[in-house]
């Protein structure tokens, strides 16, 4: 079975691409300000809300959305579903950029970025810190992702000898590349454990690492489906519906497991009482659950799974539900005490938008110039 990936070709500087370019330029302006005048100049971050949109979106949500590569690798290499192999490069591509840009956005978000390498120095590392684990795993995984992705680049460069060598050691990196996200996606949730009462009762639980892991994998499958449909429509490719319907068949089961754990845990700990509490939090919680239930109901049905429109909306619901879960836990339902409020500033939002735009530009560039998408579709 020779599956061949091929560059898509075509014009690169489309309208779409240029628009993204403008967003990147705007972000660039705010980035310059951030590095000259400090974080406070472009953001609404404060001592009560030390983490805002940058961490919540760029890192915590962004890397979960970038779990497509991880989720597909689990399927192909652990559960030996070789039939999904044609989709793995596209999934890896978004993972590579999701993680690389999450890493880049860390440099923007941390206050003392010029000392970031301290995370790797033995005299400084603190093995008790969840943050250390996240930092090390994410960095390492980004490297591994580039290695896993490099065959596509090497093929484009026709560097056959290197490619052949790589083929023989790649399995090791694939193994590492499955372990690392398993570790850090759960640790992203663990980050919140130490924040205690500041995290709303509906989100603060000791099983939060497990909940984050399950939703990350589910979002991974969701984004693979979503992106494939999106690429088909915008890049004029044939729909991969049969494969997509198989992938999306996994999603409801993961979501059911998640909801049983999440809601069961709330009942066991008695924290479910918070659902009757004041404020918008109970509604936000219900919105999360509703998005997931929608995806469960639609994707459970064999027939529905073959309808591209339904696949599109349910995969979007999965990604949005997972994103809302992360936004709620880290930002919206986060309450450091009276007197503190947070809503992202224009500068913060522009920088995040710019990062997303850059991601899309890079995606288009690679899809068109390197062999990412399976030929023969």
């Amino acid at each position: 079975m020779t599956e061949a990936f091929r560059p898509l070709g075509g014009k690169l500087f489309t309208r779409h691409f240029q628009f993204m370019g403008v967003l990147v330029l705007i972000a660039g302006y705010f980035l310059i300000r951030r590095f000259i005048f400090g974080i406070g100049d472009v953001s609404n971050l404060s001592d009560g809300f030390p983490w805002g949109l940058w961490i919540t979106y760029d890192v915590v949500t962004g890397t979960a959305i970038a779990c497509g590569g991880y989720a597909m690798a689990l399927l192909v290499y652990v559960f030996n579903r070789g039939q999904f192999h044609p989709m793995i490069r596209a999934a890896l591509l978004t993972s590579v950029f999701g993680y690389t840009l999450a890493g880049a956005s860390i440099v923007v978000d941390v206050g003392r970025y010029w000392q970031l390498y301290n995370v790797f120095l033995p005299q400084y590392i603190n093995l008790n810190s969840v943050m250390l684990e996240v930092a090390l795993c994410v960095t390492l995984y980004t490297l591994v992702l580039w290695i896993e992705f490099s065959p596509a680049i090497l093929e484009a460069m026709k560097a056959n000898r290197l490619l052949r060598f790589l083929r023989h050691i790649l399995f090791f990196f694939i193994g590492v590349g499955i372990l690392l996200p398993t570790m850090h996606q759960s640790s992203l949730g663990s980050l919140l454990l130490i924040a205690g009462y500041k995290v709303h009762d509906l989100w603060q639980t000791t099983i939060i690492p497990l909940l984050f892991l399950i939703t990350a994998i589910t979002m991974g499958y969701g984004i693979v489906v979503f992106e494939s449909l999106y690429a088909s429509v915008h890049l004029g490719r044939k729909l991969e519906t049969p494969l997509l319907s198989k992938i999306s068949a996994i999603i409801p089961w993961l979501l059911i497991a998640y909801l049983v754990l999440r809601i069961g845990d709330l009942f066991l700990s008695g924290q479910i009482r918070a659902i009757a509490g004041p404020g918008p939090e109970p509604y936000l919680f219900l919105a999360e659950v509703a998005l997931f239930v929608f995806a469960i109901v639609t994707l459970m049905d064999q027939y529905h799974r073959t309808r591209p429109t339904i696949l599109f909306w349910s995969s979007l619901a999965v990604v949005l539900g997972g994103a809302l879960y992360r936004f709620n836990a880290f930002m919206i339902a986060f309450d450091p005490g009276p007197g503190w409020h947070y809503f992202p500033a224009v500068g913060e939002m522009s920088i995040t938008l710019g990062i997303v735009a850059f991601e899309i530009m890079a995606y288009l560039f690679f899809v068109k110039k390197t062999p990412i998408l399976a030929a023969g579709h």
Partner: protein
Amino acid sequence: MKIDRRQFFKVMAAGGAVAVGASPVQARPCKTLPPDAIGILYDANLCIGCKACEVACKVANDMPMSGDGAIDQAYGVQDAWDGDDDLNGRTMNKIKAYVAEGSRTDLDDPDACFIKRSCMHCIDPDCVSACPVSALTKDPFTGIVSYNPDACIGCRYCQLACPFNIPKFQYDKTFPQIVKCQLCAPRIAEGEIPACCDACPTGASLFGRVEDLRAEGHRRLAMQPGERVEFPLNQLGGKTRAAEAQKYHPHLYGETESGGTQYLMVAGVPFEQLGMPPVGDESRARLSETLQHSLYKGMVAPGLLLGGLVYAAYQHTKEDREDQEDRQNRPEQEHGDD
């Protein structure tokens, strides 16, 4: 292929067994008071809100005044009064006044009270546990929690972690730092006492060994309102002054909060009313570390898992490798595919 998978699951199961069975999830013990633990006892009943401690703290730590407070603005002067109303990137110590809703701002009002906010120097500090680069460390002897800017990466996880919302960050600086009280460690090293205690005219900020401060705190809680008693000034075992005891709310704040703190407080009103957060008696660091370490104990479970994963990947990429060889041998075939 079936057999491969079964073997793979065996490895996974072994990993799981090691993680769960051989090393049961065991909470690490609570941390206890360091041998030479020192701290501060703040008595809100003695505090007159003069803010001498605030000024002394700013001087001792070489911190700028805020310079844009209401009085400064009204009179067009600079640095006349420190106008910030909370701890921030230039303030490690803050006296706040609390008045019950609807009552007059009269200090004789039983519901009016001052409170001094600064780092609590927790016995099991969440900030120390959180910091990835050990920029926050707890001295093994004195228990002082100090900050090392050369290590700090500015991730602000310490801010998220601290139950008392203490570490502050210089959001307005190009090259910012974390700012928090370090119990005047440099002064202590020279045999002096913290600047705030040194400057306090009433003994409301009292320096001493934590064990003694706890005893002193309990002595105050037992006092009869109206009785004349001796209160130590500046530090335990030094000068004293006689004053009339006021009613105390029966709670030595910091004795158990968040696993205990070396900064203790007594006051006439409940501490929730003074804006102290609902921290509970357990340090969150203990929970967080226990969970993290039981997941990654000695890296045995991840190691085994990795073995299983690499093995699976090896088995399931066989075709890939052979495939590639094929293509190498028959390059024309590759193009023929197209």
